[in-house]
């Protein structure tokens, strides 16, 4: 037993030691890579990072390790990568939403431009849902109820200032109804509130509740997208329902320190494409219930810009904007 403890100590110390060893500059990569993930283990972000890491290890010839630095809506993870050596061994997992809007609700000691996008991997599917046995069959039913009962409609989301909140806020605003939004800590709590009938609707991540949808316990009334999803052909999009500016997708991608040498950036970008094309990666993402979606740096930059245009006015309106 004592020797087991000793063994564990040795392992831990060597992990700590190893992670601070300086990089050998020759043929990159010569040691394991880290993906710094901005949310807790077990979250959708974490699982996506682990699927990427699992496939990535094959193409890098070095293990990819997921390190969780949850906190401050992703700023602690971003800050960690930005303050580390730009040698390509630390890659940031983040969403375009973070750079476009989240960061503008905080006073952080770095710039969004301090990291550059490598590639996008996943589009999270978000939408407005009700309980399976709810009397509201369509989104219009929900709006009609809200119109007849001003300020009575209660809906759950997972934090003010994030996409799930902003899209729904915008839709209700455009529909001209006043509602009560009830923030919860995470999807599990927001889902429980919906299933327990404590709220009338929920602005939710499909991937996290898709089983409830299949079991008929949760029904989506719309997705905040411009195109219908193949596996949910009957659920209309925000665009179809007449809320084009509520189309606020969340893209999960990888980013790297802006001062990373060009040849390393190129290698990283190449491997990202290989990871995405690997059937194993797609299978992993589909299991998770999310949508694989590839895009290069330009795609991500455009997405950030679009999100800024729509998101910042909303942030200002709800009083969360601190600028940068």
């Amino acid at each position: 037993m004592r020797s087991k403890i000793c063994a564990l100590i040795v392992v831990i110390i060597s992990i700590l030691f190893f992670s601070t060893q300086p990089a050998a500059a020759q043929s990159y990569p010569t040691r394991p890579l880290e993906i710094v993930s901005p949310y807790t283990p077990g979250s959708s972000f974490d699982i996506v990072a682990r699927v990427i890491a699992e496939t990535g290890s094959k193409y890098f010839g070095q293990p990819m390790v997921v390190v969780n630095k949850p906190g401050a809506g992703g700023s602690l993870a971003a800050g960690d990568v930005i303050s580390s050596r730009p040698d390509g061994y630390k890659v940031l997992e983040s969403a375009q939403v973070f750079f476009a809007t989240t960061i503008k609700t905080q006073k952080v000691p770095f710039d969004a431009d301090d990291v550059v996008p490598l590639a996008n991997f996943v589009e999270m599917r978000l939408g407005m849902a009700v309980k399976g046995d709810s009397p509201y069959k369509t989104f219009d039913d929900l709006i009609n109820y809200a119109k007849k009962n001003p300020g009575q409609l209660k809906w759950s989301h997972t934090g003010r200032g994030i996409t799930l909140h902003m899209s729904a806020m915008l839709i209700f605003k455009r529909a001209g109804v006043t509602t009560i939004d009830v923030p919860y800590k995470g999807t599990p709590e927001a889902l429980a509130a919906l299933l327990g009938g404590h709220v009338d609707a929920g602005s939710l991540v499909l991937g996290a509740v898709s089983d409830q949808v299949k079991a008929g316990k949760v029904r989506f009334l719309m997705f905040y997208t411009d195109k219908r999803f193949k596996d949910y052909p009957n659920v209309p999009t925000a665009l179809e329902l007449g809320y084009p500016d509520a189309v606020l997708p969340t893209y999960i991608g990888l980013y790297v320190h802006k001062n990373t040498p060009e040849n390393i950036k190129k290698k990283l970008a190449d491997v990202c494409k290989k990871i995405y094309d690997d059937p194993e990666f797609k299978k992993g993402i589909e299991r998770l219930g999310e949508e694989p979606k590839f895009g290069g740096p330009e795609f991500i930059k455009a997405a950030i810009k679009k999100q800024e245009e729509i998101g910042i006015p909303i942030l200002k309106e709800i009083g969360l904007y601190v600028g940068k």
Partner: protein
Amino acid sequence: MDTIHSLMYGFSIGLQPENLLFCFIGVLIGTLVGVLPGIGPIGAISLLLPVTFRMSPLSAIIMLAGIYYGAMYGGSTTSILVRIPGEAASVVTCLDGYQMAKKGRAGAALGIAAFGSFIAGTLGLVGLMLFAEPLARFALKFGPPEYFAVLFLGLTLVTFLSGGSVIKAIMMGAFGFILSCVGLDSIQASPRMTFNVLYLWDGIDLVSLAVGLFGISEVLINIEGSAKPELLEMKMKLGSFFPTLADWIKAKGAILRGSVLGFFLGVLPGGGGVVASFLSYGIEKRLSKEPEQFGKGAIEGVAGPESANNAATAGAFVPLLTLGIPANAVMALLYGALVLHGIRPGPFLIPQHPDLFWGVISSMYIGNVMLLVLNLPLIPMWVQILKIPYRIFFPLILLFCLMGSYSVNNRTFDMFLMTLFGIIGYLFRKFEYESAPLLLAFVLGPMVEANLRQSLLISKGSFLIFFTRPIAAVTLTLALILLATSFVPYLKGKNR
């Protein structure tokens, strides 16, 4: 009948050599993780998650679950021996467990913790097996007002957590509340008391706070006291390693109550082991005929909380396996692990993967037996550790504490925080302010606040919402009565 049949089927899976092996590895790692302060089950499971990719989903979950409930067994060890909680749910065990150890009864404390955990774990499993689905539906009935009422009831126990002055306990509770407000608030996401330090955005970590207040302060006290604290001169008698009959008589009620309480709190999202152990302690002290013995080595104060946190682990599986709602961070990790293996916890899990559901349940029975067999022979060895000279022992303890607080979020800042709280905790003890009420309020604070604000959002600011809903109304009334009675000694003029 059906259940027994299914359970037999489960055992046919759980007893396969491969699954037995992973179960054993899981509970062994869990025990170690519990023993080492700071390195909690969350850290260990996330480190080991990649390893499980190569296993079958069932073996993976058996092993990861083993780490979780194993840690609940091991967590008591350092709480009792050195007053450092091995994981957050063992914080209260420090109160009486360490006092028992000081009186030379470390073996009895460790023993009752292990047996209590075993009984509670087994009872919790019976609950999980028999009532999983109805309980999950019941838990959904708890909306923000009901949660608030239950949490408020929990908070009133602050006054029972202290051996000394009620006023001081309430002050410490208030301080805990304030500390819990640091970071982004859960409703507006606006920063509070972050002093422009990015690391404070997410608030103060429970491990840094608890290990600092309890563990580091104890090391400081011991260094100050003398190089040879009395504890280490204690003669260890072989016969005293296990609880006596008298201990059992005292502890049996606490174990049973702790099991039931822990299980139900485990089922509720956000509850889990930490809250359950605190509440169990408060209840035992309230029910005890000699509440003045609490904090001085009352065995009920070890038996109750340790049982409660183990039963809570079984309870936490209920919403995960039946609704797909993880009740706490460890369950979220297991959820992630299952998803990575292509299995989605939720309404389809039991019909589609009966092998997994019953296999995991049977493995938890097996794992609990393994833990008992593993832990009892270790007790004499743990007690021997106390004979290590303190000048060698305390740097090691500090090292473990630092590593532990670092490993929670992989950040250096937590080590500074822990050190700071160690010094604060030392001062608290010098001035006879107790840290337990602070920690309870710290744990409950964010949940109390979020549920209060959610309730008031729903009711548009009307406090009537708490009295128009039956569960909330009864619970809150009970809490207010309890709170009032704790001031009775003051009114009588007895300064207690």
